[in-house]
């Protein structure tokens, strides 16, 4: 017997099982408390910016391992530039992230380096540079406007920004030619090139977008924490990839959506949140996220074999 589920039902109950997870979470003390929901909203909002960028890169057939390191760099850059004002700080972070994305994209397109290797190299380089510049210590910024950006009532500003970014990314992907070209490039780069699309340029733009969003996420995180830390975001590429994959993106490219990514983000965010509430030690949390990513990649591999392209 074949059961057909509507896409929305599928999204909420099966892939990912978001609603079942939320129902289960009801049994966890304090999950539905306002304080916890706020913590949840805060934690997914910075990751959300990164998931949006990661999803776009993956749709175009790439991958970005450097997002966590770029996030740390973005936070540090913003705090360091804060004395010049909040606008230069934000612009500085965005530009730094954009440049790092440009370098990743250039490695991937012009030098034809595998995206995992290229962005791994960028990840280590950016992390190293950030640690070197800060001498591994957090940089402290005490600007009232900046710190206020980390607050927001009743909803954190970062959460509202994340929603706006997700909406913008959705419009970009579905209602602008650029997004359609990204899907075409991800599905078949050669065909896209033969159709006259500027494949390299588009892919570089994807990585720049991902870099800029990650750096901006770093700024928001720094505003919330009150410091620009050079060591944040170590797990970010993995959680972001898990969220994007759960949300329907594929390592083969050409698939994925922002709505899916949002559901994947909520699922991963809730999972981590529940584990925190239950007092699961962080090592086991890592194992869980790693295991989830492993399972997703295995499933994707099986699907790939079952459905020759």
């Amino acid at each position, binding site marked *: 017997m074949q059961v057909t589920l509507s896409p929305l039902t599928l999204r909420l109950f099966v892939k990912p099982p978001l609603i079942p997870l939320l129902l289960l979470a009801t049994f966890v003390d304090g999950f539905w408390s306002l304080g916890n929901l706020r913590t949840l909203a805060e934690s997914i909002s910075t990751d959300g910016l990164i998931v949006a960028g990661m999803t776009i890169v993956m749709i175009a057939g790439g991958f970005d391992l450097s997002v966590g390191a770029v996030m740390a760099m973005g936070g540090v850059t913003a705090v360091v530039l804060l004395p010049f004002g909040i606008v230069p700080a934000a612009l500085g972070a965005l530009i730094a992230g954009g440049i790092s994305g440009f370098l990743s994209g250039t490695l991937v397109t012009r030098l034809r380096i595998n995206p995992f290797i290229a962005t791994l190299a960028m990840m280590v380089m950016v992390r190293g540079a950030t640690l070197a510049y800060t001498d591994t210590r957090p940089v402290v910024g005490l600007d009232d406007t900046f710190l206020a950006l980390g607050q927001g009532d009743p909803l954190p500003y970062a959460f509202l920004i994340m929603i706006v970014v997700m909406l913008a990314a959705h*419009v970009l992907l*579905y*209602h*602008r*030619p650029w997004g*359609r*070209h990204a*899907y*075409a490039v*991800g*599905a*078949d780069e*050669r*065909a*896209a*090139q*033969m*159709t*006259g*699309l*500027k494949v390299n340029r588009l892919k570089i733009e994807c990585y720049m977008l991902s870099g800029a969003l990650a750096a901006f996420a770093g700024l928001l995180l720094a505003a919330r924490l009150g410091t620009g830390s050079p060591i944040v975001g170590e797990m970010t590429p993995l959680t972001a990839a898990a969220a994007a994959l759960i949300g329907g993106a594929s390592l083969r490219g*050409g*698939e994925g959506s922002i709505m899916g990514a949002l559901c994947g983000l909520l699922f991963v965010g809730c999972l981590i949140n529940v584990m925190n509430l239950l007092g699961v030690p962080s090592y086991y949390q890592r194992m869980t996220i790693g295991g989830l990513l492993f399972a997703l990649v295995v499933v994707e591999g099986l699907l790939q074999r079952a459905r020759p*392209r």
Partner: protein
Amino acid sequence: MTDGALVDLVGITKQFGGVRALKGVDLSVRPGEVVALVGHNGAGKSVLAQILSGVFPPSSGEIRVGGKPVAFTSPSDARLYAIETIYQTLALADNLDAPANFFLGRELRTRFGFLDKKKMAEEAKKALADLNPNFTDIERPVRQMSGGQRQAIAIARAIHFQVQLLIMDEPTAALGPHETAQVGELIKRLRAQGIGILLISHDVRDVLRLADRIVVLKNGELVGALTAKDTNEDEVVDMIIRGRKLDANGAVK
């Protein structure tokens, strides 16, 4: 160059690493003329077609459109000169639907720069129905479509926009006899409209039926040029296999 030619290729060579795929090819196509390019696999037919459609530049030699030298850095450049290509691989994005593929790279937009999906679907539907009246279920990913339907999308998008020179790389390779006949009819119709066609094909019988001139490539060199109505299957096949070189006057040595 040839007077009144749409496109001239002059002394085109192409080197891939140590491999010389083309060794100095001259070719012209006039308006309303069907020129067939025949030869074995690996003779350089597709390479020549892809140079003319802007996929990659020649190593040396010149492309002239309307007598003026041009340089293509991408297929979108060739499109600006009304050169359209139907690739052997069709060059479709499997995850997108027919209208999206049809308008890929030249999407219709609303006043605010957003995709005008409704209008694109309507126009694509009309254009595809012109080729195949039964082809109406177009808004699903093309990976779910039949070979003939996919071919129809590739053909329809090549002739829908401004086109003066149409390059067809093995347009009937994936088609059944009925659909092949339809493509033949289409070629005749386009020729009558004054469109120049460069037809690349294995099928010598097809070529004799459809082409005005037949050009034979062997090992990256032009080895013969025949007028379709003055030749026959044996002569063309003989030339493909044995490959006789032309002297400066275009006569067979």
